């Protein structure tokens, strides 16, 4: 039998305190490459992740938060820590957005997960005003390639920052919704929220 079994186990509060201390030390040491937290919203729990440059990922529950964090560890850096306070501004703006109090996000964004034309498309999406929609072909044209409608649609489909970069405002030319990585019901809910404001 293990003779040290009776040594006390650290209580969760102590480990939480040490974890918070590690987050602070890592941030001061420039080794907190990705901070993350979750927020409760009317569309379920969202994962928010940020690099020192800005918000890098917003993920719906349906994407699998663990899978999203593993992908971030592989693509950006494995130095990933749960650090809620570092995402307080983003969490607050999302709260305000879902309460109808905020129409424009004012957060530093890190678009390193999007490349080339996809990045061009994402950069132009905030030009679609709150409560308005645009077609995929209009978005392709705004990004400088009027014929690249399918590429514009796939840029929206893999938007790493849904809600904050409003790919939900892009719909089909015939007025139907088109797809959405958070599910069509989520897209409809966002457009309904914005039409009320």
């Amino acid at each position, binding site marked *: 039998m293990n*003779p040290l079994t009776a*040594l006390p186990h650290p209580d969760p509060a102590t480990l939480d305190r*040490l974890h918070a*201390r*590690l987050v602070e030390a890592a941030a001061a040491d420039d080794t907190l490459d990705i901070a993350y937290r979750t927020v409760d919203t009317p569309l379920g729990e969202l994962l928010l992740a940020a690099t020192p440059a800005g918000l890098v990922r917003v993920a719906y529950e349906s994407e699998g938060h663990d899978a999203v964090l593993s992908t971030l560890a592989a693509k950006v850096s494995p130095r990933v*820590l749960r650090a809620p306070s570092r995402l307080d501004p983003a969490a607050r703006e999302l709260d305000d957005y879902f309460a109808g109090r905020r129409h424009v996000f004012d957060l530093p964004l890190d678009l390193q997960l999007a490349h080339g034309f996809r990045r061009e498309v994402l950069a132009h999406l905030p030009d679609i005003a709150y409560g308005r929609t645009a077609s995929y072909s209009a978005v392709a044209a705004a990004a400088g390639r009027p014929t690249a409608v399918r590429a514009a649609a796939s840029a929206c489909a893999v938007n790493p920052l849904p809600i904050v970069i409003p790919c939900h405002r892009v719909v089909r030319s015939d007025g139907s919704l088109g797809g959405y990585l958070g599910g069509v019901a989520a897209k409809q809910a966002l457009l309904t929220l914005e039409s009320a404001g």
Partner: protein
Amino acid sequence: MSLPPFESIVAEHGAVVLRVCRAVLRPDDAEDAWSETFLAALRAYPRLRPDSNIRGWLITIAHRKAIDGYRTNRRAPLAVAELPHEPATADVYEVTDAALEAAVRALPDKQRQVVAYRYLADLTYREIAELVGGSEAAARRSAADGIATLRRTYVPEEPE
């Protein structure tokens, strides 16, 4: 295969590393040692091979950065005398065995480290010998001596 998010390393091994630090260091030094260990681990983490033995790697960092070097002068002398005299509670899950902690802390440095690395961190004697120096057989003897001393000095409370 790639490295998992560092958060999962802290979640999985944080408690074990703290138990080891508490067993081999004074209580106030143990938390500093934990912090120093995990910050150093976070720094080095991107260069770690994904198939590494993570717990062994963390204990190695703890030993080299925080434990080795504290030595005898930092050890609580005769911690037995400082024990709070609390009655043992009936619920076994509530019992924190302070007498055992004190007995471990009273072991000589090397025995204490070897016993903690073996029985708390589950390292092999070969890994332990690499950390504390000497041969694998010497590490095994240190552990046996340490355990023999614990059996002599530590008398668990008899259940009612």
